[in-house]
């Protein structure tokens, strides 16, 4: 992970876990050792061992920036020494407990702000976090566990991390570690077992944490696909896509969502990418309903991982042909069109026009299944 510190911003890697004691700090220290052995300059900026012997043991051999003493009211508190870290300027700095709140009198109110300053200085950072410290999950986890965590961080901090590593442990194994005195000193074990460290709490927290990872697998696959698509669109002369690519033609009205959902399912079955195209008439103002429908379509496209393309043109067919050629489309999906009016009745319908101008591209008209008079039962009990 570590690279020579220069004008670039440092990279942030966060070890996240369901609770204290799962091994986040331990793993962070192991990675620190690995980087050091690879020849990088690694220091510990802040370490909270909570008296755990195995954590203290694994920290040995890594340089540590001593904490500084900050006077607050009538007491002296030890905090991370941010100015010393910045002066020392290592390649990689290990900073435990991302959600910590600093004592007043230091540079920043929160440790994640300190970490931002370290990253800005071009220093890579490894840090640790428990899932309940995330702001938007706080209420949910309080409800699950009955314990409210006061120190929270905005979700965006984690969103900006370059890497997030989930440290997982079964609730039973964590409780075994707790009972063996590997998490808290003996005098705190009973209290912990009677409060936060209940099997049902830990199971629920683990479920929350694991769900993140399960979703990430699907999202990563999709992200790779989207990056490939962007590159494809940049290269105008690139050869036509070998795989399938669907293009759904939409307009901002409620029925378009049905078309998008069906197109997405088809794309999934084919293992294909999905584009949505709205050809806007130049100068046409959208009504309030249309604006809301358009916003809903954009949201739907984003959740489904479809790319929404908006083109302005008077010539619908040419705009579709141009986009389909550019994107390497193999299927075009359209909804049922409204009845033609006036002289438009004499024109060739859109599906036929598309088939004439895009030979080799399938054109599919998506029906409204709710209008079907027969078919599967609607009952589901």
């Amino acid at each position: 992970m570590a690279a020579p510190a220069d004008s670039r911003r440092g990279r942030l890697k966060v070890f996240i876990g369901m609770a204290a004691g799962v091994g986040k700090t331990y793993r962070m220290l192991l990675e620190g050792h690995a980087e050091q052995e690879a020849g990088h300059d690694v220091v510990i900026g802040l370490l909270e061992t909570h008296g755990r012997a195995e954590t203290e043991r694994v920290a040995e051999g890594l340089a540590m920036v001593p904490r500084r003493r900050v006077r607050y009211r009538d007491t002296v508190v030890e905090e991370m020494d941010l100015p010393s870290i910045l002066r020392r300027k290592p390649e990689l700095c290990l900073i435990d407990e991302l959600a910590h709140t600093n004592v007043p009198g230091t540079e920043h109110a929160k440790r994640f702000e300190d970490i931002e300053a370290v990253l800005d200085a071009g220093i890579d950072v490894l840090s640790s976090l428990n899932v309940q410290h995330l702001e938007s999950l706080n209420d949910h986890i309080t409800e699950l566990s009955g314990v409210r965590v006061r120190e929270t961080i905005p979700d965006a901090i984690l969103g900006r991390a370059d890497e997030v590593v989930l440290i997982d442990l079964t609730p039973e194994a964590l409780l075994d570690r707790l009972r063996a005195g590997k998490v808290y000193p003996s005098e705190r074990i009973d209290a912990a077992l009677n409060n936060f460290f209940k099997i049902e709490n830990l199971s629920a927290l683990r479920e929350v944490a694991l769900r993140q990872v399960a979703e990430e697998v699907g999202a990563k696959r999709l992200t790779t696909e989207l990056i490939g698509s962007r590159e494809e669109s940049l290269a105008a002369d690139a050869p036509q896509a070998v795989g399938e690519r669907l293009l759904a033609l939409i307009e901002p009205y409620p029925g378009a969502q049905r078309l998008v959902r069906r197109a997405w399912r088809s794309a999934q079955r084919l293992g294909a990418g999905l584009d949505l195209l709205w050809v806007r008439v130049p100068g046409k103002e959208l009504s309030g309903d249309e604006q809301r429908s358009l916003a809903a379509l954009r949201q739907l496209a984003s959740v489904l991982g479809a790319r929404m393309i908006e083109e302005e043109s008077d010539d619908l067919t040419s705009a579709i042909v141009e986009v389909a050629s550019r994107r390497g489309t193999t299927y075009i999906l359209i909804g049922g069109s409204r009845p033609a009016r006036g002289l438009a009745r004499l024109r060739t319908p859109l599906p036929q026009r598309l088939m004439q101008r895009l030979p080799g591209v399938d054109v599919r008209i998506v029906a409204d299944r709710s209008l079907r008079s027969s078919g599967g039962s609607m009952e589901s009990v």
Partner: protein
Amino acid sequence: MSVGVTVAVACAGALLGIAAGYWLPPHGRRPARNRLPEGRRILLPFTGDEISRRSFEAAVRLAKAENAIIMPAFLAQVPMNLPLETALPVQSARGMPLLEAIEQRASSQGVPVDSRVGRGRSARDALRKLLEVEHFDRIIVSADEDPRAGLSYEDLRWMLDRVPAEILILRPAPDDTRRISTEALKGHF
């Protein structure tokens, strides 16, 4: 009647015919395809792959009585370690078929539907974001969902405290296990 007048009348008739042909679709009614009735908006939020049939039926009854639109909304939850704008294919695979099933079922009963997808860090966060950008007159929620999976009792309390809409919380009788799920879909989806 002179020839000129006859020609003028014929031209006027032809123009009138063309104009009527332009404005009226083939079956003599104005196109209503894209328009929803101007009425109340009933939000029907859900998080899983099925909803209580009692909630759905209540929404349909109210929509019919008030000439309202049903707006089923799938609330997707974005994992903490991903950007909020991330695509969610796994959750979508659960939520989209149910949106389709609700839409089909409501449409077949003559109730207009306009679906939504909300996205946030939790179900409550997704709902809050949806409510920030859209107005709903009424929200119908079922209190029988698994609180770990979707809207919890805390979320319902939050809605009662904070959401400026009529809120109808339905708790079906314990023996009323009827659900609407993707099995209600007509044809493959």
